[in-house]
């Protein structure tokens, strides 16, 4: 089935997320939609899937104009979608998830689960998925959940299949397997739209490439195009992710983590026997695919995880067993991975957010009262120093852009006397200008002799910042390698393999 988008425009208030986008996807073709975060790719696909209504433009399937009131219409027309955040119900079984929305029933309206199971098995066998129809989705690993999403789309006879950033949660290996599946689907005649911002994947699997930036189509490219050509199209200027940084001059070991285990609420060891050392004046990057225990590891150091075995010490002080308050007081700065969720109080002003982790005493509190004048003075100073762009220090943090929010968090954490800085995904979802700023501050912190841990899923960032790289997989550290380790080696390690030269 041929899919055509003509002049799709979608506005949110003053923001035009999609500006007259044209796109044609031929049957049996993998069409890549390439663009930075926030370029408008997901909005476009939500319009296609009927989740949003376009303000202008039309959608055509085999030259027939479609009117999608909701996802139900899009599905009936033959469009299937594999969402970035899986649209699966964790407490339902695979079969229940697959049948939801187009249930077959038997006498008396009872669900025909047998038919659903058979359908799951049939599709699962066709692609060699080996998915148990009766497993609870919440118990399945992420890779398998994604396959359930694919089965769900295929069980509705989707002829156009949209993959929205499908590799974000996958290991390189799982990614390769997904590529194989996509090719297999294409060969069976399915039209595939593959949304991503990862150049490697695009070049590997795409038949055609459309690049969008700031809501507009900026060009088409062939898969033979080079990385830099694609990147230039995508970002609009030559990308330079290499941070200016001198060689590290590591000092004494500062943070020592020994045999650390973290057990989650379900009793799973999400961090398993992790040991490493970070020295003064070096950046240790923790690399790995999302969800391999990095989050829990940093939280365990911060005292945010309740079930921890092993020992963490900073200098002569033991951090394990301390409350978050005491860990912060010991001089640990923490930039959490999800700033709106964990880093900021959105309804608080910038100034209030700047004192969030110092509400118990000097310099902002005296005898139980807030010292607003001190705080405002401090906030004005930091606003200037960290180039926080906002009308005033009384602006609610929730109304800032991602980059400016991150600067507020950084300003707060870096204005204490630090003995260790932990930054988790410090540049996720922020603009290029802010990325440079954040990276620069990381290097400066290192050069001031403070040990820094950077957790990142972006290999580019890891390579740009790290003096040493620890790669995590399934809760364990696969290995700790120098900062100049080739990317393909890191890629293998992220899949849990320990290359020969590392093991040696």
């Amino acid at each position, binding site marked *: 089935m041929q899919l055509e988008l003509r002049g799709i425009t979608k506005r949110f208030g003053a923001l035009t997320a999609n500006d007259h986008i044209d796109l044609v996807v031929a049957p049996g073709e993998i069409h890549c939609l390439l663009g930075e975060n926030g370029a408008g790719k997901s909005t476009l696909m939500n319009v296609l899937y009927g989740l949003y209504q376009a303000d202008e433009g039309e959608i055509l399937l085999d030259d027939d104009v479609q009117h999608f009131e909701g996802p139900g219409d899009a599905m009936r027309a033959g469009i299937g979608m594999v969402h970035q955040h899986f649209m699966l119900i964790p407490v339902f079984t695979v079969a229940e998830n697959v049948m939801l929305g187009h249930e077959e029933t038997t006498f008396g309206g009872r669900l025909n689960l047998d038919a659903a199971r058979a359908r799951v098995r049939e599709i699962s066998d066709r692609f060699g998925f080996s998915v148990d129809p009766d497993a609870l989705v919440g118990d399945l690993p992420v890779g398998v959940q994604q396959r359930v999403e694919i089965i769900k789309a295929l069980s509705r006879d989707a002829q156009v299949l949209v993959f929205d950033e499908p590799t974000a949660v996958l290991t390189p290996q799982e990614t390769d397997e997904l590529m194989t599946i996509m090719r297999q689907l294409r060969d069976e005649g399915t039209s595939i739209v593959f949304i991503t911002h990862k150049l490697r994947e695009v070049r590997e699997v795409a038949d055609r490439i459309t690049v969008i930036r*700031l809501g507009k189509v900026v060009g088409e490219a062939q898969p033979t195009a080079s990385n830099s050509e694609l990147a230039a199209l995508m970002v609009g200027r030559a990308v330079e992710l290499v941070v200016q940084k001198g060689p590290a001059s590591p000092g004494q070991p500062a943070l020592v983590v020994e045999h650390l285990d973290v057990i989650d609420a379900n009793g799973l060891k999400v961090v398993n026997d992790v040991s490493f050392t970070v020295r003064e004046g070096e950046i240790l990057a923790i690399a790995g695919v999302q969800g391999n225990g990095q989050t829990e590891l940093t939280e365990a150091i911060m005292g945010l*995880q309740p079930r921890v075995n092993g020992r963490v010490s900073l200098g002569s002080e033991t951090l394990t067993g301390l*409350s*978050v308050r005491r860990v912060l007081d010991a001089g640990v700065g923490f930039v959490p991975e999800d700033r709106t969720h*964990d880093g*900021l109080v959105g*309804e608080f002003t910038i100034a209030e957010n700047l004192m969030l982790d110092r509400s118990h005493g000097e310099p902002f*509190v005296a005898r139980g009262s807030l010292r607003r004048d001190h705080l405002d003075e401090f906030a004005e100073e930091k606003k200037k120093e960290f180039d926080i762009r906002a*009308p005033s220090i009384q602006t609610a943090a929730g109304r800032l852009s991602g980059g400016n929010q991150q600067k507020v968090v950084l300003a707060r954490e870096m204005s204490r006397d630090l003995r260790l800085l932990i930054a988790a995904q410090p540049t996720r979802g922020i603009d290029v200008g802010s990325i440079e700023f954040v990276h620069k501050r990381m290097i400066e912190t290192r050069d001031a002799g403070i040990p820094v841990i950077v957790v990142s899923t972006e290999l580019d960032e890891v390579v740009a910042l790290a003096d040493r790289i620890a790669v995590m997989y399934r809760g364990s550290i696969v290995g700790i390698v120098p900062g100049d380790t080739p990317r393909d080696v890191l890629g293998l390690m992220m899949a849990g393999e320990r290359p020969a030269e590392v093991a040696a």
Partner: protein
Amino acid sequence: MSAAGTTTASSPTPEPSAPQPRANAILKEIIGGNVLITILAVFLALLIGGILIAFTNEDVQEAAGYFFSRPQDTFLAIWNAVSGAYVALFQGSVYNFRRDDFATAIRPLTDTLTYAAPLIVAGLGVGLAFRVGMFNIGGRGQMLIAAAAAGWVGFSFHLPWGIHLIVAIVAGIAGGALWGGIVGLLKARTGAHEVILTIMLNYVAFYLVSYMLRTPGLLQAPDQVNPKSPPMLETAIFPALFGPAYKLHAGFILVILATIFVWWLLNRSSLGFRFRAVGENPNAARVAGMDVKNIYVYAMLVSGGLLGLAGVMQVLGTVPTGFSSGIDAGIGFDAITVALLGRSRPWGIFAAGILFGAFKAGGYSMQASEGVPVDVVTIVQSLIVLFIAAPPLVRAIFFLPDGTRRKRRTTPIVTKEVEAK
């Protein structure tokens, strides 16, 4: 592009809105915002109340029987019924212009303040819990325990004037804080939801106090058969503020102090800072080193204490002649509406409490003089809260433009749980 105050034209990314000229902002706030909506909500609720009064009025029903021959009779009857009721409401709550001298005519206003006193402190308690992201429906239980504690001190202790009152107040606040603290503790330690806990503890308190009130030697008056306590001793009663002619008592000064205290606590203290941080985003609060669980306990202690103070107002101020298990007079639930109407801001609650106090004072005189059941006040109050909670509805009814497009959520009224770790 700095914050120079110049409004930039169309920029592709959503920038924080540039500051508008001050007057413009105030105008917008009034038209699209809270003040107008609040006024319209009160108006709408009174209108519906009026319809109810008209429909159930006997004269109206009678006149409606011959509506088609003389429709003006029906309208006249409706006017008489509704205006009569609302005039009685006004005369019973603000100023009775049928009296000659000012001193007597103004008495209803002092009645209003007397009724408002427990409503305000109770509203402060509920509002404070809201700000910490908790829903304290346990006002009834906290007030009952507080009333029992303060009442017990009030009728059985023999202490000098002044000290007796203070001891009784402290006992009451402690009782309320204890009952609220149990909720905070159970929520913090076991993760149980405070809505369920407070509802259940209301009944536990009710039966506990009922039992004590019918057991001689505990709270029951010695010569009584009814489950009722002895009257408070003179030394434990709030002194009248303007002499014996007015019901208004010194408790109202305590109410003003409590409002100032809560304002300071929430806006100027470090504990209040943590309260608000936990209320708005418990996860960020936890990551910033705040002990969220302890904050829940502290907040429920303070909230319970304030509701306790409301119970104290009842036994030592409003009805010092001995109390029964109905001493809470529904204030624990009214407090929720007061807190919502006041948008959980201390002075907003103060104003809302006075409005509802006026409804209460006026409601009784309306019932007495016009025969309109006082329940109509309950209806009007709950309608006000419903309308205020849904500004789009009010705007739609009055064909107002959608004043504020930006999402505005000033007070957290949804409990945000910290994720179980």
